[in-house]
């Protein structure tokens, strides 16, 4: 929502024959994929494990506001004299949680509705298509403002729910397109001929065939949700409770950290944290793409 996003990756209709063997090998073989994996694991690990080791008390120190990086404060202090590094280390949990949960919701809704619509066609399909048209047309800002005002958006879970519920239509459409083509595949017809049951056909025979596509879009959805969350803070639609990267960026922004050489760490650190996490995910996506789309694999 904060950038012109061409949206979801193109449906890659090549049957994603998963190469059960060598997933790990492919992953490790590609240097960038491995780097991505390491980044993601490191940052997630830091965000979730650090609170176990780091004292989360980060006292205000009104005398030491906007200190540049020093031995005591590696990344300096913020507008209230709090240690920036500590905030970065401790501030990833919510963002990552919201990103993942929102992505799960987006994907869940998109996959279920998309495959049902494509499989059953008819009225259900056109109704759902109409719905996506509408949800996509209503500008997210307005939707967020209204829903935000009503649901209070106080917990990460409600935030994730909201983000998820807003972002599903684009993905739903491409899942639908994929299922439309998959359901014409002969193996689906074969399953129908054997009366295997529609639900089983959809969710056991068809959907797993999009696993690669779904996984990749899941990752895209995670990164989108993370920045949408930051956008929510900046728009003032999500209450600024607690401390996380999004709130840090918002504070750095409102307190004008960018103007102060000593304050730049405060704004750059969370931006970098998110950017690195995202970069990690993107690089990971590339190897995943290779795993799921053998046509792309190169030497």
């Amino acid at each position, binding site marked *: 929502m904060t950038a012109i996003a061409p949206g979801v990756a193109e449906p890659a209709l090549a049957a994603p024959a998963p190469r059960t063997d060598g997933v790990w090998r492919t992953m490790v073989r590609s240097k960038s994929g491995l780097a991505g994996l390491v980044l993601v694991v490191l940052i997630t690990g830091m965000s979730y494990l650090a609170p176990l080791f780091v004292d989360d008390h980060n*006292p*205000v120190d*009104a*005398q030491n*506001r*906007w200190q540049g990086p020093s031995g005591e404060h590696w990344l300096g202090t913020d*507008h*209230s*004299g709090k240690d920036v590094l500590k905030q970065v280390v401790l501030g990833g949990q919510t963002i990552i949680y919201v990103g993942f949960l929102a992505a799960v919701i987006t994907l869940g809704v998109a996959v279920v509705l998309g495959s049902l619509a494509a499989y059953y066609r008819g009225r259900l399909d056109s109704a759902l298509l109409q719905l996506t048209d509408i949800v996509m047309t209503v500008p997210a800002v307005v939707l967020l403002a209204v829903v935000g*005002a009503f649901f209070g958006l*106080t917990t990460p879970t409600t935030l994730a729910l909201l983000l998820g519920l807003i972002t599903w239509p684009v993905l739903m459409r491409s899942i639908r397109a994929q299922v439309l083509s998959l359901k014409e595949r002969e193996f689906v017809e074969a399953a129908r001929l054997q009366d295997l049951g529609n639900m089983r056909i959809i969710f056991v025979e068809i959907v797993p065939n999009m696993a690669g596509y779904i996984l990749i879009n899941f990752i895209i959805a995670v990164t989108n949700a993370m920045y949408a969350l930051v956008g929510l803070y900046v*728009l*003032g*639609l999500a*209450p*600024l*409770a*607690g401390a996380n990267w999004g709130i840090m960026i*918002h504070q750095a*922004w*409102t*307190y*004008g*950290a960018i*103007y*102060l050489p000593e*304050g730049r760490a405060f704004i750059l650190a969370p931006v970098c944290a998110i950017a690195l996490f995202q970069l990690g995910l993107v690089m990971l996506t590339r190897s995943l793409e290779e795993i799921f789309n053998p046509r792309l694999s190169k030497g």
Partner: protein
Amino acid sequence: SKADPKDDDKKSSGEFHGAYPFNKPPDGHFNRGGGPNGLAPVAMYLLDGPYSDLIHMPGALWEWEAKKWVYYLAESSEFSADFSTFTVKLRAGLKWSDGKELTSQDYLTTMYVQWIQNSPSWASIDKIEAPDKQTFVVTLKSPAAIIDRYILKSAVIDTGTYGDFANRAKALVESGKATDSPEAVALNKEFNAFRPKGIVASGPFTVDPKLITAAKLTLVKNENGYRAGDVKFDKIILFNGETPDVAPLVESKDVDYATHGFTPAQEKAFESVGYRIMRPPTYSGPALFINHDKVKAFSDKRARQALAHVIKRGDAGAVALGDSGKAVDFMAGFSDVQVPDWLSAEDQGKLNKYENDLAKAEDLLTQAGWKKKGDSWQTPDGKTAEFVISYPSDFADWSAAGDNVAEQLSDFGIKVTPKGQKFESYNPEVDKGNFELAIHAWGASQHPHPHFSFSADLFVHNIPIARNAGGRGMGFELKVDSDTMGKLDLEAVVNDAGRGLDEAEQKKNVTKAALVFNELLPIIPLFERYGNNPVLEGTRVAKFPADSDPMMKNAPYGDNAVVMGILGGTITPA
């Protein structure tokens, strides 16, 4: 690597670069309306705020330190001995920018248009007259301390443009119609839709509609205007925008003076590129509001006093505004600067200054029935003390104060979670009473009289006025029982403080209100906000008033010292 030629470039003869948000057409328009400075112009008039005094001049502006008027369009003013009338004498030979003569008739026009707009000034006006071209007489219904301000600070508008409306208003006033009569309402509606083609100015500057863009507004010289000869600048350029939009322009030295609420970080950055920071008092600031209806744990005044002892108000101020956030000392309900003017030394001594004292606070809480359990406090009803503090996330200083208070209290053992919201949704929530703790404003920056401060502290977000928003605000009952003053009606006391013209009587009521406020602490003022206005000297503007200048006591949003300096010819091009 800033090249000199660039700086030279900016020096171009006699330009003053200010910054203030304005409304660009088509939203912004040229219907100035009849309001006094800061009061009731038609919504979305091109330019609110102090700079508009350069175009539509008021009769006079106030010098806060000297406590006297500096006369502009007016030559003098006085109350009759029995305070039944107030007379303004206009200068002779004043001209509008369209060449017409500026007379007391225009004052009539102004005041009648104010009537159309339902201005509070008419609350105490009975009748207005212009016996001759230079004289304007107001007959008062009831004497009010503030009527002279309403009248003198009104931006005078021209009869050529607004005369028709004024005449129709006059007819209604004379036929005894009230402002809520259907005719008046219709007239008001019509007036609000009125869109003059341009501005007819009385001051040394006017607006060329061609020179308005979303980015900046250029005020050009009005040679006909009063003081046009004294003002040394040819042009005033105002950059549009709020704090984050304007900050880069300041940083790049494109702005000579800005009144925005900059953050300490920005302020520091400005200083490093050569700005001086002026710190005029604003006579107001953020306070901790408590929802008395909802949070019973604080219904005991000792609990509130304990809070005041816990919170390091200086820290909150420093975090929020750096050097411009000064801890409130007297806790009298109005600005520390003004306390000596209104309270005797003895009464000042009676004020509890609520020094930072955790032991005292614990003591008070224990007396109030709180219990400490481990690191955290329990309220008298045995629950762990946990509260949410709301604040508008878009006001950097308030949200910093809110965060800081939350942390200080949490460190003390009262767990407080911050919750930032956009002001637009936050403010109505407060008025509806949907909060536990909140940061909101105390004090008054427009008017020097403490009546306005108390009104802000006790009425605006409390039962008397919050009613308009459909709630009880902080729900503090104004009929109080105090140790110092016994039982009394605070609402009446505050209103009385602003009524009448007997200064001694006013002081008595102000003192009463101050002492009761100090004891009961319905709200806990945190710090007083001083301006942190960056000024750039030597580039386009030679000098701004020194910090020691008495004019620096003027509230920048009420009677702006820089605007007055430009008008007076004391602020000059470099």
